[in-house]
């Protein structure tokens, strides 16, 4: 485990990017898998091409391999989507940013540094699907901690705000 939890540290919530972004990838993958099937089916049905019996079997094999390649790429996208995660504990906010495989960025923000938390939902789609960004202003630094494209940003803001408040009381 590359981010060990500290003594007494408890995970409060784990947040991923909104499901809309992976749904788009799913549609893209299905379209990509179907394109050669549709093109060849149209060509066969309109009589432009005719397959021999062995040609049909070979074509089924090639199409299946094409679907396999699309399937593999989809899981690669899914991995970078799903491993892009924000973990809120009672001490810290951990931002694990997966740009692509073998390209990871981890930022840790201590809750006792939190000064101000704001949320933003900009656009019709974010309003309809309830996703947006949470930005956290930290003490003693001009750096802004930004969590983007997450579901229910206001819920996350409340969790972080409550956890930071509990920590300040201790």
């Amino acid at each position, binding site marked *: 485990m*590359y981010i060990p939890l500290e003594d007494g540290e408890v995970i409060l919530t784990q947040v991923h990017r909104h499901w809309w972004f992976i749904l788009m990838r799913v549609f893209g993958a299905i379209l990509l898998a179907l394109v050669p099937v549709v093109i060849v089916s149209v060509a066969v049905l309109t009589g432009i091409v005719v*397959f021999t019996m*062995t040609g049909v079997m070979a074509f089924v094999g090639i199409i299946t391999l094409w679907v396999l390649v699309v399937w*593999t790429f989809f899981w690669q996208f899914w991995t970078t989507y799903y491993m892009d995660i924000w973990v809120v504990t009672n001490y810290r906010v951990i931002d694990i940013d997966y740009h692509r495989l073998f390209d990871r960025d981890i930022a840790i923000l201590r809750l006792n540094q939190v000064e101000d938390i704001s949320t933003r939902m900009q656009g019709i789609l974010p309003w309809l699907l309830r996703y947006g960004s949470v930005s956290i202003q930290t003490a003693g630094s001009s750096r802004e901690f930004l969590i983007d494209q997450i579901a229910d940003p206001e819920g996350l803001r409340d969790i972080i705000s409550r956890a930071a408040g509990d920590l300040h009381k201790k």
Partner: protein
Amino acid sequence: MTPLPFGNFPILIDISPLVVGIIFVLVGIFVAAISVILIYHWRRFPFEYERFKWVEKVYLSGTGALLAIAAASVIASIQGY
């Protein structure tokens, strides 16, 4: 077959089983490499381990099924010759 102004149709397509076999091997190597990388990342991820075990099963089942269909098609096309 009646020659058309823009070419002779229909075009008879016969794919060599050797070509399909070579594509099968290349794609198999590619998928095996990507699978190792993906599973390596999933197993090292520190959060939600139970969910990744489930994902691994779905991924391997799908990949296995597609590889089996492709292999069966390649074998059938070779036997057809």
